[in-house]
């Protein structure tokens, strides 16, 4: 079922996918220049952009009313939610590949020779960074977008920004600088402790992804189309 749904989205959203290739190539060039081929940065940026795509697909279908047509097809809501997560993964991977190819092309153009292809796999960026980007750009906002559409995306972006911006305000005007610094320090300490143990980090990430998927299922099942 998922391949059929994926094919449907590829046909339906090609208008969104095709133009995205142009800025993709442009960004690849800019970042390749700016960061001296720091592939992790390039990869992360592209994964970020591609990971957002399924959110746009969903918002577009929601606004055009085709979401009801999709849900009325003989597919389960589980499959529709799974499709969005899979799309983010596939598009992220495609973006990475395209990005690296573009990077290689830029390098070749600048140096006048094609780098060895065996450099390609190692340059795909750090998996843990990409996994966190996948979570941050796709899995974290997905339940909110599936339930509340554009307002959900606004909340997914706005709430963390609001919280982050409230801390300096609290420190500056509420004279709580010490407490704010202690809080940030505690958060950083926990984070450092987690990333110091790859197993623990992987477990945390897997748990968050699983939680996101379950919440997405619940959110989409409860939505009136």
């Amino acid at each position, binding site marked *: 079922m998922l391949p059929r749904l994926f094919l449907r989205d590829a046909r339906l959203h090609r208008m969104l996918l095709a133009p995205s290739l142009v800025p993709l190539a442009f960004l690849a060039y800019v970042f390749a220049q700016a960061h001296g081929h720091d592939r992790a940065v390039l990869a992360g940026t592209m994964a970020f952009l591609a990971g957002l795509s399924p959110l746009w697909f969903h918002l577009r279908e929601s606004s055009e009313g*085709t979401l*009801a047509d999709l849900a*009325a*097809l*003989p597919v389960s809501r589980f499959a529709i939610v799974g499709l969005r997560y899979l799309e983010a993964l596939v598009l992220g991977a495609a973006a990475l590949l395209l990005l690296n190819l573009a990077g290689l092309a830029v390098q070749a153009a600048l140096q006048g020779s094609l780098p060895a292809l065996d450099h390609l796999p190692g340059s795909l960026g750090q998996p843990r960074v990409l996994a966190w980007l996948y979570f941050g750009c796709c899995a974290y906002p997905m339940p909110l977008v599936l339930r509340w559409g554009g307002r959900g995306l606004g909340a997914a972006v706005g709430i963390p920004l609001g919280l982050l911006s409230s801390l300096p305000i609290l420190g500056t005007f509420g004279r709580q600088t010490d407490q704010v610094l202690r809080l940030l320090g505690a958060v950083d300490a926990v984070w450092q402790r987690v990333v110091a143990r790859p197993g623990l980090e992987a477990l945390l990430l897997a748990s968050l992804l699983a939680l996101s998927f379950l919440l997405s299922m619940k959110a989409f099942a409860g939505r*009136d189309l």
Partner: protein
Amino acid sequence: MTNLLEVRGLTKSYGAFTLRGVDLDVPSGAITGLMGANGAGKTTLLDLVLGLTAPDAGEIRLFGAPASEAASDLRARIGFVQETPALCPHLRVPELGALVAPFYPRWDAAAFRRLCGVFELPLKTPFKALSQGDRSKTALALALSHDADLLLLDEPTSGLDPLARREVLDLLLEVVQDEGKAVLFSTHITTDLDRVADYVAVLKEGRVALAGARDELLDAWTLVKGGEELLAGPLRARARGGRRTEVGVVMLCEGAGLEGLAGPDALLERPSLEDLVYFLDRDLEAPCSR
């Protein structure tokens, strides 16, 4: 004859609107018409059956199985047309066919092409540029091209010209020639149901006010027209609605053969489906509004 769709005690609230304990059977080999005014709950009921919205209470059974557990292969046996078809706006009609075909194992591309021809659909125009009538016809062509056993059609003939409406109704009659297939067809064009429906259900303010075989329903009611004195007569107790007019009163009364209860000046008629929808539960005491 088996019921392809069974609805029991279906309840759903949206703000001020509530669908209240709806019971409905859609038997095979027949067309069931769903009638009611705008806002009566027809679209909500069909959306619930299609799984587009979750019920607050009640049960829906599709092909004998609970709808909530209906697997994809069961849902592939349903064809549907929504009240306002919102198919992918930038795709052309043939592309729309190609888009949905993979989801239906019994998709018949030749039938789809034939229906596009019958409906005279423009094949090179994006869906968003089609007229309302052509949009409905496109949705119908898609619904009728995968040999569905159960067709759920929400006002499929609204926006169609009389010729196209006739074609659609004839197609629906063809569908139920197969004893294993059924059509549930919501509309407020009651003449369409007069022409094709075997069973009807009347929704009023979110509840089923009447349901049954069309002819039996019509035979069970009498429309009585006469002077104001009818309101004080024995038929008043049988009246389930009506209205005052400039010259007297029209009452919808339960039962047939009421000649003996009406005065000599009263006119008794078998009501039409439109009469049933219009007069049922209408306040008989309300003053004439002209």
